[in-house]
């Protein structure tokens, strides 16, 4: 039994509030205003909360979504044992999630530090191609970072309220980031800006001011030059202008770009007038998840996608891992997990004991295909699982294999490695550190039959200039 109010959610209560006659002048005589800084902070907060950039860092992000739906908690590794503070942070972070890309080769070293509020922020390096700008950084606390964060629910010193300037002009770009603790006092991260529509010059002055690290307010301001000279000659751009018709919208693929760190697919589109908007899908197209393949039929590893919608028109920028060769065309198969399933669906799994099973062994993922576990090795404190994925979407399938303990709690992996040899596509490795040897674990593959894979909407993007 509940109090009447608790039975209703905001949406319903807000509807009832239309029926109240309010005296609109009630507050006119109160002399109180938000100052400009408060308004700026509010705008920044809303921008962060409402932007629709989705990060899919390899297996981790994609699997977290699924694992949560399986009802298990997600156990984070204590520290990222494989991220060095020396060397390229951007390379390490991207390698860890299987993105490869020549980060170390094309990164520009910055190494500038600012100390405030007992915290040293160091911008270690930066890399910029035509569509993304990635910044590598470390945060070092004089105390344990988690203890310094004012909000105890927050565990990471997110770069909040960070503003960027290019040649003195504010850069209004979608940004997002990832990172890991290397110890309790040190966090290393990468912040990525989507600059696809910003047309930045080849060389520019860059200003970055951080005013909030996970709730710790301060001032960490940086100024440095960024040059795209090195990388530019290795970028290939195409303007395919491929028009595709979807059930709810029409799109035009305006640009496909290959750089040593990224593959970008950029398109714009408009919604059809008779479109029915499903819950949580305002401003986004129904099929904005794509399996993309190169001209040899090898699936591209999706990194993240960001989109922007204004009225009936929208733009998308989808990013995939860098390719070793520029293909002659790309093939796309759209798919989605229907919204009505997302909330309630319990994914079935097929599992095998980690120890005691004979390898190779197969785990079915439903109609989409299967996972073949080739080998499980224990080297010192590491447990390494080598496997392949066979089926329509190997990367996607590979990200839907996980390890769980006897209580069915998923265990977070420490490294997800994708074989970078084009002769060995679709070979993957999951590495776990320090598994408790007294516990029984099992490898579980998620049944992906709930996904709607629209082969009937398949299309090709020819790449010729």
């Amino acid at each position, binding site marked *: 039994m509940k109090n*009447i109010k608790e039975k*209703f959610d905001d949406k319903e209560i807000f509807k009832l509030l239309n029926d109240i006659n309010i005296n609109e002048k009630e507050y006119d005589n109160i002399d109180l205003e938000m100052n400009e800084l408060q308004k700026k902070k*509010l705008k920044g907060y809303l921008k962060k909360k409402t932007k629709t950039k989705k990060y899919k860092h390899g297996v981790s992000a994609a699997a977290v979504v699924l694992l949560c739906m399986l009802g298990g908690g997600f156990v984070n590794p204590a520290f990222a044992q494989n991220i060095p503070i020396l060397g390229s942070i951007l390379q390490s972070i991207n390698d860890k999630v299987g993105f490869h890309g020549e980060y170390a080769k094309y990164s520009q070293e910055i190494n500038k530090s600012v100390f405030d509020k007992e915290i040293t922020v160091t911008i270690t390096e930066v890399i910029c191609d035509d569509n993304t700008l990635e910044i590598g950084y470390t945060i070092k606390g004089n105390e344990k970072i988690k203890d310094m964060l004012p909000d105890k629910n927050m565990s990471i010193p997110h770069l909040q309220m960070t503003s960027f300037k290019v040649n003195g002009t504010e850069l209004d770009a979608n940004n997002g980031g990832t990172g890991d603790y290397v110890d309790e006092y040190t966090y290393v991260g990468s912040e990525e800006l989507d600059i696809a529509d910003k047309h930045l010059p080849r060389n520019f002055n860059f200003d970055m001011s951080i005013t909030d690290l996970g709730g710790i307010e301060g001032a960490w301001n940086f100024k440095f030059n960024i040059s795209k000279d090195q990388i530019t000659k290795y970028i290939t751009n195409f303007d395919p202008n491929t028009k595709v018709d979807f059930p709810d919208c029409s799109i035009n693929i305006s640009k496909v770009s290959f750089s040593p760190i990224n593959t970008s697919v950029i398109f714009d589109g408009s919604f059809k007038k008779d479109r029915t908007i499903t819950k949580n899908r305002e401003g986004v197209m129904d099929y904005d998840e794509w399996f993309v393949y190169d001209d040899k039929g090898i699936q591209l590893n999706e990194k993240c996608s960001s989109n922007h919608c204004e009225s009936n028109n929208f733009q998308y920028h989808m990013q995939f891992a860098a390719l070793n060769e520029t293909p002659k065309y790309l093939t796309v198969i759209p798919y989605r997990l229907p919204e009505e399933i997302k909330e309630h669906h319990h994914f079935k799994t097929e599992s095998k004991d980690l120890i005691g099973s004979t390898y190779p062994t197969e785990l079915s993922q439903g109609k989409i295909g299967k996972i073949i576990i080739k080998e499980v090795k224990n080297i010192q404190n590491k447990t390494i699982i080598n496997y392949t994925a066979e089926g329509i979407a190997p990367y996607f399938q590979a990200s839907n294999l996980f390890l769980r303990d006897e209580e069915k709690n998923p265990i977070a992996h420490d490294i997800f490695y994708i074989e970078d040899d084009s002769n060995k596509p679709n070979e993957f490795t999951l590495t776990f550190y320090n598994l408790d040897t007294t516990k029984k674990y099992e490898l579980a593959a998620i049944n992906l039959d709930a996904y709607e894979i629209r082969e009937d909407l398949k299309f090709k993007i020819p790449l010729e200039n």
Partner: protein
Amino acid sequence: LIINENNFVHQLIARNSKSLDYMVDNYSNLIYKIVFSVLSSCNDHQCIEECVNDIFLSIWNNIESFDNTKGSFKSWIIAVSKYKSIDYKRKLMKNSDIECIDNYTLSSNDSTESIIISNENKNELLSIIMEMKSIDKQIFIRRYFVQEDINDIAKSLNVTRIVIDNRLSRGRKFLREKIMALKKEVI
């Protein structure tokens, strides 16, 4: 597209983020005043800002609940802000030992006044509320959903407290009878 007072609600519905900036520029002072008047006694500036943040975000998330045939956007967001800040204050008091010099009656010990319901269908309840006479409905929503203080409701409607008490009692009776008629149980 330039966002102005004529198109910004439509642009909020269309998920145009520029319309949020417009809303901040034009309504943040009003919302801030409302939140401040409810939460100022808590003496915590941070929670006022957090609550303002939350109100803006929930307007963005629930903009389709606004019905422009029933009233102005301004009057709706005043109601939303009152509701959210009183709710925020209630949660704040529940979770902490912050002492508030209370201007609002946040929970009533008077058992005849609280409405506890079991498993009635939400839509049925809503339709019963919508059947109430306009003034009764209004007082009922302000008291039981927004959780406004009875004296404040009386003051804003320019009537005495007794009038509000009577109308609330009538509203509860109406609800009880209607639910009984639906063969559901009211405790």
